[in-house]
């Protein structure tokens, strides 16, 4: 309508316009031109209408209809979880051993500091460890950035903020913190200022600690660790030992519940102590262990069948080989049965036992127990054992009572675990094993030998040199060891001893091995001047077992019950008068 009226208006002066029946019509060429124009307008209009219709439809589609893949409920972007740059380290019960804390480091922009004298005076008041003069020098420097102090506590941050000094600011940083201090420091290890692991688990698992936010679960139990460290420290002090080491290991899973090395250090300030405090005696140190090796010699002979529990050897005379003389500390000068050799810790008997098995057999047996290869424990500080080369007959004899071969305490604990757990060699681990995890066990000793060895180990505590390790109710078994340390000249020193005791409990179904080693203990009046394993290390094991058994869940038994006495009965001297003991 509109268009037509307009057209009429425009076309008014043209002559060919005729008004017919109230409608305007045109004639000739003019009409044709108009018709063409009208058609073009209609087409253009249609195109525009279509375009607008499409836009409109799309608007309706966007605004009112939902797309198939559009969510019905709007979701917020994924919430960021708090995570530190380095994952935590936990003990087996989830107790925090190492964590990263956000700290603030104070810096200043000297250009913004109005009165450096006043600012320095105020700062020195809240941060007394900084000297006023030093702060003043820093604040009047030319640059735009100067560190004042790294890693402030929240309290100090608050104090500094309260001063209201312009030009001071904080930089957010992370700092590795060990809440338990020196406890288990050798295992947990420590990091440098850039939070990279330098020792212990921190170094061994450095990459995974940085990569993952999942905490690392160790097999340690801080309670057992504390008991072990405390008892070792007490013994170290009482006997003026230069060092001590101890291990508590699960005999079935190979998990280390506690591992101590004294003197210790605080991983929060690792460089504060002397260098040797960071040395892990339990894994990196290798020592000639002495008589505790008779456990392996006896097990080897029983396993090989060269002697039975009723057999024995003549220990009347010392053995002389080349320039060496093998003698007994508690000499009986008679024929000794296998239980007696073990109980009295006869070197002569052990040497003869080993000779009957032979050098090859001895090496194979010790290798099976993992004593000739470094421990597989997951720590960077693992010492390789020192073994005789070549392995002569004299070495076979000395190794039988723990001389001429040096192993780390963790190797010894693993090997004893194998002997008492039924004969399965299980690799030592510092990581917690899930109950469902398969345990990589390998048979190294027969089950029968293992049972006999349990009886013999129990005998040492009830009748022999290990009486001080007894913990009533927990059926402790074990073996003492006292080795003279090699001096700088390569000779053995009578005064410098390495005294140890390795125990396991409860002997009717062993669960844990407890090892205590004291480095150069000195006898006291109470021990009648003795510094041997039975006097200095055995009490440590006894106390550790008494204290840990209650919270680790071991039910005490009545040791005088007939069935218990019978289970541990050993015929001491089949050749002499029948002396039955338990």
């Amino acid at each position, binding site marked *: 309508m509109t268009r037509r009226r307009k057209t009429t208006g425009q076309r008014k002066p043209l002559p060919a316009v005729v008004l017919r029946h109230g409608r305007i019509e045109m004639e000739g060429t003019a009409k044709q031109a108009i018709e063409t124009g009208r058609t073009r307008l209609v087409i253009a209009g249609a195109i525009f209408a279509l375009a607008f219709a499409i836009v409109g439809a799309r608007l309706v589609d966007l605004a009112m209809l939902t797309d198939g893949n559009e969510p019905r409920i709007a979701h917020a972007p994924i919430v960021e979880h708090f995570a530190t740059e380095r994952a935590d380290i936990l003990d087996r019960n989830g*107790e925090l051993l190492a964590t990263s804390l956000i700290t603030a480091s104070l810096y200043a922009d000297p250009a913004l500091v109005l009165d450096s004298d006043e600012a320095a005076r105020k700062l020195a008041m809240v941060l007394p460890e900084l000297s006023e003069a030093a702060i003043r020098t820093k604040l009047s420097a030319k640059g735009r950035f100067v560190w004042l102090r790294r890693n402030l506590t929240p309290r100090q941050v608050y104090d500094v903020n309260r001063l209201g000094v312009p030009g001071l600011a904080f930089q957010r940083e992370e700092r590795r913190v060990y809440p338990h201090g020196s406890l288990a420091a050798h295992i947990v290890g420590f990091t440098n200022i850039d939070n990279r692991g330098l020792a212990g688990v921190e170094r061994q698992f450095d990459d995974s600690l940085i990569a993952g936010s999942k905490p690392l679960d160790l097999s340690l139990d801080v309670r057992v660790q504390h008991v072990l460290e405390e008892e070792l420290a007490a013994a170290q002090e009482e006997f003026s030992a230069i060092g001590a080491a101890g291990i508590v290991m699960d005999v079935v899973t190979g998990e280390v519940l506690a591992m101590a090395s004294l003197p210790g250090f605080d991983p929060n300030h690792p460089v504060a102590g002397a260098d040797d405090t960071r040395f892990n005696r339990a894994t990196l140190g290798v020592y000639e262990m002495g008589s505790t090796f008779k456990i392996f010699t006896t097990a080897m002979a029983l396993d090989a069948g060269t002697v039975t529990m009723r057999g024995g050897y003549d220990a009347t005379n010392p053995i002389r080989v080349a320039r060496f003389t093998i003698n007994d500390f508690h000499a009986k000068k008679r024929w000794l049965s296998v239980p007696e050799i073990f109980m009295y810790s006869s070197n002569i008997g052990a040497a003869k036992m080993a000779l009957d098995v032979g050098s090859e057999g001895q090496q194979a047996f010790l290798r099976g127990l993992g004593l000739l290869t470094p421990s597989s424990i997951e720590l960077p500080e693992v010492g390789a054992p020192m073994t005789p080369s070549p392995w002569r007959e004299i070495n076979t004899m000395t190794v039988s009572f723990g001389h001429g071969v040096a192993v780390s305490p963790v190797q010894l604990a693993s090997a004893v675990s194998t002997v008492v757990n039924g004969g399965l060699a299980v690799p030592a681990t510092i990581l917690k094993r899930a109950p469902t995890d398969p345990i990589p066990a390998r048979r190294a000793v027969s089950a029968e030998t293992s049972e006999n060895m349990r009886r013999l180990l129990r005998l040492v505590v009830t009748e022999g040199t290990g009486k001080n390790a007894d913990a009533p109710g927990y059926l402790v078994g074990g073996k003492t060891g006292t080795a003279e340390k090699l001096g700088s000249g390569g000779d053995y020193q009578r005064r410098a001893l390495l005294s140890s005791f390795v125990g396991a409990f409860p002997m009717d179904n062993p669960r844990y091995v407890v090892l205590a080693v004291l480095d150069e203990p000195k006898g006291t009046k109470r021990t009648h001047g003795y510094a041997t394993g039975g006097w200095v290390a055995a009490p440590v094991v006894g106390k550790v077992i008494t204290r840990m058994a209650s919270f680790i869940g071991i039910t005490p038994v009545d040791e005088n019950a007939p069935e218990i006495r019978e289970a541990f009965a050993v015929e001491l001297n089949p050749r002499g008068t029948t002396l039955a003991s338990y």
Partner: protein
Amino acid sequence: MIRGTSLAIVGLIALIGIGLFHLTHEVRELEEELARLNRDILAEQEAAHVLKAEWSYLTRPDRLEELNLRFLHLGDMDGARVLSVSDLPFRPLLEDGPEGHDGSVMPESSPLPALPDPRRGPVLPKDKDPGQEIRPTLASIGVSQ
């Protein structure tokens, strides 16, 4: 009529515009609140992290031992102090008499099992209100009731 339609459309547009503006504003406010809540959650998580470290520091075995020595005086628990359930005397049944219910009198028909060896340590009094002992202890370490 054209004026009417145009006015209606302009009015509608204005109305929709105002509505849209209002909605956008609300969404923005909600988004700000969400961001604030997320920031708060993060801050709380960080605080919890610090508290965990502090808790671990405060529950160090050596500190607990020292606190025990100061306030509880509990000794080491040796094997002789652990009994099995079967070693415990049973509380008499209600039918045995009203005296039996409060545990003060044991009926003659069920003699007490043999008491454990005296060297097994002291037997704790049964009916003592533990709170009586704890209250002065709490006060002495400065905990207000």
